[in-house]
Each structure stands twice: as C-alpha cells, then as structure tokens.
C-alpha cells in the first residue's frame, strides 16, 4: 500500500510541477480563456517536460548506482 501511495504522490507532484512550469511558459498573459495557441503550447510543454524528467531520472539513478552517492 505504501508503494501505491508513493506512485500517487509521484504523479501528483509531476502534475503540479508541469502545471506550474507550463503555465509560466505558455500563459504569459492570462486572458478570459485558454486560446488555441496556449493549448497547443501546453501540450508540447507537457511532452517536453516529461522528456526532461525522464532524462534527469535516468541520469540521477545511474549516478546513484555507480557511486553510491546519496544526496
């Protein structure tokens, strides 16, 4: 059950970070709706952020395993 809570916490944190960063990147002047360009930007930003998160995850885990380095 803890593992499941961990997975949920992880997804929640990811949603929060993506929302915060992509809102800053894509909705610089918030208007009365999300327009088509902002929506497209958010979708691209979402995939791009996931890409970055995967890069960082793999590199960090590799580094921990190689060096038993623990931050």
């Amino acid at each position, binding site marked *: 059950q803890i593992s499941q809570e961990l997975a949920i916490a992880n997804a929640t944190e990811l949603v929060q970070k993506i929302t915060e960063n*992509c809102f800053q990147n894509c909705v610089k002047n*918030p208007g009365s709706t999300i327009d088509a360009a902002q929506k497209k930007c958010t979708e691209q930003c979402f995939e791009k952020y996931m890409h970055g998160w995967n890069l960082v995850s793999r590199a960090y885990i590799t580094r921990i395993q190689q060096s038993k380095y623990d931050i």
Partner: protein
Amino acid sequence: KEIMQWIDSENSKAKVQSSIHNFTDMCWKKCVTKDITSNMLDTTESNCMTNCLQRFLDTNINVVKLIQAAQK
C-alpha cells in the same frame, strides 16, 4: 465515523486554504509588477489576478488529462 468525516472536512479546508495562499502568491508575482501607489488593485491588475487563477486551473485540468492519456 462522524469524527472521521469531521477530520476529513477539516483537512480539506486546510488544503483549500493552503492552495489559496499559493495561488494568490503566484498570481500576485505575475500581475503586480508596477510600483505600488494605491491600496487597491487597479482594473488591469484585478482582471489579471482573476484570469491568472482561472487559466491556472484550466491548465491544471489539461495537464491531468494529458497525464491520464499518457498512462494508457
């Protein structure tokens, strides 16, 4: 059982309050960028605060949908 419901309701009140503080802080930094010379938000700032909150919540819903689609 009643006490558990009451605790749940207190917890979700605390979460809502905490979200309100974070949203206000984020939208303040986005919308109040001029020197302060009045004790009221002007029309531009006040529209910006409301739109900032609403579009942030829209973005949050979109991101949740995108992550759910990605997990399938």
